[in-house]
């Protein structure tokens, strides 16, 4: 999962969904979620999921990449269904179509709307401090992604991580994580200094 990559697609601005107002998109998404949560007819929900898939294909959004995001909810559903005694097909289809509809709706919005625009809308009803943390996180993602990419390039040049040798792989990864934590703390201090210089105060 690479948020920086999703952000790249959301900034393409080449489809009508990219150009649509963020508030309207979020309102439509809320309606889809509420409809799916309350709906009890899996055929209608399946229709919605097919419609959203068609929309994704029509807009030439990266369907394969989006499809990968369905894996985690599906893993949960497999566990969940295995754990239900006398599972009825009606219930299973209902839950699957609900999940598909909601996740496809979310992904369509995520791949066509930059996160910062979503947070601007959040700012209308969430506390100011919280929204500022969202913005700081968003900004930091790109700084850390670049650092992580550089680290992995360096590791690859030295032979890469071989998971067939788990102890060695864990040893390399723990150093990567330790380094990443130290770097992120240092970067946060630099970011604080920059913010302070510009008169930024989280409590304003």
């Amino acid at each position: 999962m690479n948020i920086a990559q999703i952000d790249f697609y959301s900034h393409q601005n080449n489809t009508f969904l990219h150009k649509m107002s963020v508030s309207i998109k979020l309102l439509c998404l809320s309606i889809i979620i509420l409809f799916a949560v309350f709906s009890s007819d899996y055929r209608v929900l399946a229709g919605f999921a097919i419609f959203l898939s068609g929309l994704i294909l029509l807009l030439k959004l990266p369907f394969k990449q989006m499809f990968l995001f369905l894996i985690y909810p599906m893993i949960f559903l497999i566990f969940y269904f295995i754990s239900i005694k006398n599972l009825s097909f009606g219930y299973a289809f209902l839950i699957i179509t609900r999940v598909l509809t909601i996740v496809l709706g979310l992904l369509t919005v995520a791949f066509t709307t930059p996160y910062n625009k979503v947070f601007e809308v959040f700012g209308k009803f969430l506390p100011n401090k919280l929204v500022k943390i969202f913005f700081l996180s968003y900004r930091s993602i790109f700084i850390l992604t670049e650092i992580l990419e550089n680290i992995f390039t360096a590791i690859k040049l030295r032979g890469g991580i071989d998971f067939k040798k788990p102890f060695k792989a864990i040893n390399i990864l723990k150093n990567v994580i330790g380094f990443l934590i130290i770097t992120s703390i240092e970067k946060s201090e630099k970011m604080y200094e920059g913010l302070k210089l510009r008169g930024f105060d989280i409590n304003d």
Partner: protein
Amino acid sequence: MNHLHIPDGVFPIWFWGLAYVIVFVYLAIILKFCKTPTKKMALAGMFSALMLVAMSIELPIGYHLNFAVLAGILLGPTLSVLVIFVVNTFLAFLGHGGITVIGLNTIVLSLEALIAFGLYRFIFVKNKNIFIKGFLSAFISLVLTSFISAGIVYAGVHDLSYMHHSHHGHKHEHNLEHHEQEMEFDIKKFLLLLIATGSIGWVIESSLTGGALQYIKKVKPEILD
């Protein structure tokens, strides 16, 4: 698997609604009454990003790191909860966890962070080997929260009869109700699946947590003070 990847639409409204209320009350208390200087908030923002970026590190068994334990140990009980909420909100917009279960996911991961914080700072405080200290704090916390996760799923879905009401007006109402009356969530089976798939991940994440803390102690020990 300790992180609930529960999608929207599985739990009843009262259940996820209650989780949202608990989380928002906790966050409101943190934001209103706890000291939140800009420096701490910059750190919170950077650590949220770190958790999100770390998830892109692919492990071959399909497990992804979440760093809630490290957040708990390094940031403490207030800031880590704030960070976890932000991370869950980011992830929910990708269908990784659901929008309606942001509250539930925040509770589970916050418990993971809080348990690890408590173990690291109070229970294993005398242990001088930082790797073992970090490993045990992470491992116990991951195991406990997996049980809590299973408990949460059970609490939310053990009474599948609520599904009956949502099928009114459906053409297959009678057939479905007939089947659903017999449906029952088997928590033991669910736990067994969690343990079977999660145990390797717990060991990997705990080793990485212990190892990362060891690395920090060598390179920049003041962070751990």
